[in-house]
């Protein structure tokens, strides 16, 4: 036997059987891409035409990359409004998301009915993008920051509840057993054994959502939901593209600064 195994390359281990799932996945990918790309069924993307018309975009881009700094003063109130909206929405959205997350986690939910209902509602909430909420609330309460704040609250609720309920699913069960053994009821268990474990994550997610809110405010204004986006929309309508350039630059810097702050705060927490 030993001599046979030394006989050479003939004795290589057999190649593992390839799974049929991989070619099936590739086939599905090719089919869907063809369907979505084709002019007949899909969007009809024609790269040659795009490249030909590429210079049409240059006129606008040339203005955008030369920001009009004289416009800065007029952007300040809108920028402040953006930040105010983000703060209020983060505070309210995260407060609602905390109990919603406890209901949506297997570890802390009182019964499976509450769990399923809560998860169902959260799935529906998460299915709509922030801007659609903006449009809906502008239709309901007319234009202004209130519509934007309401839109952000729903958006935040969806994001935080998803992240936090998954974090709660993964907590260490030891403290929970200890709390139960000492006679704690459900609320007391959550308060003393679960909440302290997920608090750092909860704060980190809230900071993350605050960042997302600042980003979202660029676009919320496009539908009239307040903040810097309103001003942006106005400049686009009047073709003041160098003002657009300044607003984009400011937002870029604001998001960058908030991201830096948020990363350094999160690092201390988690």
């Amino acid at each position: 036997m030993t001599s046979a195994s030394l006989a050479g390359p003939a004795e290589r281990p057999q190649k593992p059987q390839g799974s049929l799932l991989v070619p099936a996945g590739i086939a599905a990918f090719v089919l869907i891409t063809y369907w979505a790309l084709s002019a007949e069924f899909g969007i009809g993307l024609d790269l040659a035409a795009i490249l030909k018309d590429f210079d049409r975009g240059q006129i606008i881009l040339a203005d955008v990359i030369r920001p009009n700094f004289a416009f800065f003063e007029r952007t300040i109130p809108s920028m402040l409004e953006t930040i105010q909206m983000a703060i209020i929405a983060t505070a309210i959205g995260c407060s609602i998301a905390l109990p919603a997350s406890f209901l949506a986690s297997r570890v802390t939910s009182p019964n499976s009915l509450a769990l399923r209902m809560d998860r169902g509602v959260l799935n529906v909430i998460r299915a709509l993008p922030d801007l659609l909420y903006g449009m809906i609330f502008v239709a309901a309460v007319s234009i202004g920051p209130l519509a934007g704040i309401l839109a952000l609250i729903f958006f935040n609720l969806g994001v935080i509840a998803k992240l936090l309920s998954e974090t709660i699913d993964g907590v260490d069960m030891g403290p929970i057993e200890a709390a139960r053994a000492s006679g704690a009821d459900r609320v007391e268990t959550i308060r003393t054994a679960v909440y302290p474990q997920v608090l750092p994550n909860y704060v980190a997610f809230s900071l993350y959502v605050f960042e997302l809110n600042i980003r979202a405010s660029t676009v919320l204004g496009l539908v009239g939901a307040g903040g810097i986006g309103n001003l942006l929309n106005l400049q686009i309508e009047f073709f003041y593209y160098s003002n657009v350039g300044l607003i984009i630059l400011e937002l870029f810097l604001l998001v960058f600064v908030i991201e830096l702050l948020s990363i350094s705060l999160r690092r201390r927490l988690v």
Partner: protein
Amino acid sequence: MTGPATPLSDRPEAPSRTKRNIAIFAALALLAWALVSVDVELDRLVALPGRLAGMFGRMFLPPDWTYFGTAAEAMVDSIQMAWVGTVIGAILSLPLGFFGAQNVSSGPVSNLVRLFLNAVRAFPELVLAIVVFVPIAGLGPVAGTLAIGVHSVGTLGKLTAEAVEGIDSGPVEAARATGARPLQVQRWGVIPQVLPEIVAFWLYRFEINLRAAAVLGIVGAGGIGQILSNTLSYRRFDKAGMAIVIIIVATILIDYVSGTVRRRIIEGSGARRIQGDVLEQPELVEAPGSGVSKGSTGT
């Protein structure tokens, strides 16, 4: 003091709460400032529940079913935009991700690529559509698709680079020990390790892009957003309600399918089990590159 008579009051000192209290106070002060200075009329807030109930009633009780065909067609447009945009992002981001990973590419190149990816990521799809792609491609789904594609390059490139930086250096060294050339090292040492993760990122990005594609119509870049925008501005709430129902149902269905495929890809790979978190909150992932030893640096 000596002996077993140590009183119970000798508990360890409670950790200082000063920092925590300062942080809470600062957060509350910010919130108070925002609440006082934001331009929201209180009477609107009071009227809100009534108005919302009235509007939702007109939207969903019942929605305008005759509008189903039109809205569904526009939703299909949105799905196609999201798919093609994701494909564009995936194709372009793959090489960029490798060049952006410090253990595969060289220091200056990877920094430059990372900077480029961050800059691209900073522009939301809608801004890209307004400023760049609607002027180039005209009104319609092509402009939205390109906007989604370019924005996805930024996010997918960053995630790809981080996945590549997180690889186990063993297979890379093994490939090199057998005399593999640089490209072969990538093919046999790196790609098999990161591909499942990257494909999962693509699918996750598709789910996000679907939401973006649903709103791009607002600026005329195609898809169901256009319909929602029109019906809402004409206050045809029953039609808007139909569009919203279609968006919700289609999004939840696609999320479910895509999530199932993702889980199969990640868990089926058997190599590493990725926490749901990593996929769900890509922005929270810190670069794990520092853990990779210098000796494993490829070319």
